[in-house]
């Protein structure tokens, strides 16, 4: 039969917003006896389940106050039913203004609270870096282990916002839809898509005006920040997602890459496998290393790695932990993420 080895980072990646793409890992698979394969899988799963959620230190002060939506001015009852085409191309009709919204991505949770839909939200996905604090009391209906459909049904959910690219298991999405619950699936590979997602959530929940205002505010702030780095030198930057065994970095065409570029970096990218060889990395010789895995990796760890000592960033000590959550979560705090990146890459810039 089949044997597996689950990559170490499989589990933390779930709870981090939309970082499901980080799960792109190879898994050693070879023929063998089912007993062993399943036992290995069991052990690894058990080990993963027990791993504590590591808090990720924030380097830059997050000035959330700078980007907030204008207070939801008496939203005029929008024309429900509304029809939305979600990011997977599914056409979803929401018959009434939802009064029990379940958020299956941390980004959606943040967005819902930022657009004044807090009173409509009844359940959320587990989040190891929870935000906002107001969402803390909500019942958790999904974890890295899966989506608990029964709980969602018991909440009488009339709208579910799910994550794409497999973040929410497609089978769960199909099942919810088969029960007549509208599900919109969102994911974002760019800032524009992230903002479109915010607006889609607004439309779906009857908070369109606030959502549009929020998305414009975020766009405006990000454009302003990008403008500040426009003329600066762009250091070749290696963004480390994980390097515990193999080395993982950001793929080309991802939200990561776009943010790094806006922050005035020249990011080293790879393909959809997220993997990069040490040889390639040494050849590309980054000037700056950003530790997206800063929760469990320090500059000393990087310096101690064999064969890394010749890399320019290592020699010059330009290794900085960053708050991965802010950068990868396609929600209302994207501008904060961008600001955090700029403050590390270009500390001279006055934000």
């Amino acid at each position, binding site marked *: 039969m089949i044997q597996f080895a689950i990559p170490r980072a499989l589990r933390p990646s779930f709870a981090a917003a939309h970082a499901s793409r980080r799960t792109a890992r190879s898994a050693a698979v070879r*023929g063998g006896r089912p*007993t062993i394969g399943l036992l290995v899988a*069991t052990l690894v799963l058990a080990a993963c389940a027990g791993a504590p959620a590591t808090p990720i230190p924030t380097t830059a002060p997050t000035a959330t106050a700078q980007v907030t939506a204008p207070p939801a001015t008496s939203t005029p009852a929008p024309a429900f039913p509304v029809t939305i085409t979600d990011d997977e191309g599914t056409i979803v009709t929401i018959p009434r203004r939802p009064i029990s919204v379940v958020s299956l991505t941390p980004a959606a949770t943040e967005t819902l609270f930022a657009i004044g839909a807090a009173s409509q939200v009844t359940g959320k996905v587990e989040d190891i870096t929870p935000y906002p604090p107001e969402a803390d009391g909500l019942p958790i209906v999904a974890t890295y282990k899966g989506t608990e459909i029964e709980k969602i*049904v018991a909440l009488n959910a009339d709208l579910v916002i799910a994550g794409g690219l497999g973040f929410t298991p497609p089978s769960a999405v199909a099942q919810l839809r088969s029960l007549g619950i509208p599900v919109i699936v969102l994911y974002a590979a760019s800032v524009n898509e992230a903002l479109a997602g915010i607006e889609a959530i607004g439309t779906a929940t009857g908070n369109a005006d606030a959502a549009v205002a929020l998305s414009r505010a975020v766009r405006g702030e990000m454009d302003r920040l990008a403008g500040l780095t426009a003329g600066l030198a762009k250091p070749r930057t290696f963004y480390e997602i994980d390097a515990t065994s193999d080395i993982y970095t950001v793929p080309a065409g991802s939200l990561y890459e776009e943010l790094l570029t806006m922050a005035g970096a020249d990011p080293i990218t790879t393909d959809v*496998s997220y993997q990069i060889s040490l040889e390639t990395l040494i050849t590309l010789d980054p000037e700056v290393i950003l530790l997206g895995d800063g929760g469990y990796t320090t500059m000393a760890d990087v310096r101690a790695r064999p064969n890394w000592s010749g890399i320019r960033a290592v020699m010059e000590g330009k290794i900085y932990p960053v708050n991965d959550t802010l950068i990868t979560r396609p929600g209302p705090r994207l501008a904060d993420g961008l600001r955090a990146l700029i403050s590390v890459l270009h500390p001279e810039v006055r934000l």
Partner: protein
Amino acid sequence: MPAAVGALAPRRSSGFRTAFARRPIVVGALGLALLVFITILGIAAGTVVIAPGDTVAILAHRLLGLDVAQSWTSAAETIVVDLRLPRVLTAAVVGAGLAVAGAAFQGLLRNPLADPYVLGTASGAALGAAIAVIIPVRALFLQFGLLHALAFLGALSAVFVVYRLSRLGSRAPMTSLLLTGYAVSSLLAAGLAMAMYLSGAGLRQIFAYLLGGFEASSWGRVAVAAPLIVLASAVIFLRARSLNGMLLGEEAAAHLGVDVRRERAVLLAVASLATAAAVAVSGLIGFVGLVAPHVVRLIVGPNARLVLPLAALLGASLMVGADLVARLLGEIPVGVVTAVVGAPFFLALLRRAQTGYEL
């Protein structure tokens, strides 16, 4: 389970067994009672607490059409009728199908260590599912996605290839089948590794498939998978005589009136069909197909006429029970539960196999 493993010890089995062998009806009734009991538990338990009274009332109302005063919420009704009932039924049907297919493969290959996956169905289905995850198509037909379709086709194609390859100039068809199955499985596993490597964000989904589970069950899926599995099992039941003949080997089977070549092809095809349908709806769940037939043989002996239906009952009960445990432990993969229960049994079986068992 420990009791059953103990009963594997040589000689002790016979007396224990003959006591039951004369009363297959009693064993069958016990098996049925076990299945009904576990099924009721499976419907009553879940992450959301629904009062047992309400559960019974909902079932009576919806299934039997009884006019019961409605004391429950519509959410509770949805949970019981549209989530738990199809889930338990899927588990039962898949468990029964795998157990029957396992019994057929063990009898056909004359190998007590054979299971429904031995001829490549598992790796074929896994590769199919992994490829489906990589292909960015999200269409659903009858609540089945590309993943289910490719898993189903992958399982069947793998067995077909194994069967055709094994027939090339071979004099010991069963040994050849087993070895070819192993070789093809290894090759497919390499393909699976590659697909997983390329799958990016889909890795989680592939992984979930490999460990199997019933959380995505629905009436629509039961309606497609159950008839396939039931039909294939029925065809196998009707061929109990052929499986009995093969107890003594193919040549002896031929002397006893079995058209070995034809029966082998038919049994392989339908057992693989049942397995493919099972793995398409529930992923790869090990051990039930291996263990259920053996436990039944320990109780009633090797007569396929008894083994097949009783293994179906036991397999269904084991699977519903394993799914229940998986659910109560917070939706852990059901394959993990069956492995924890089945692995000790498998080891005991291996130990026994080493002592030899030629007639």
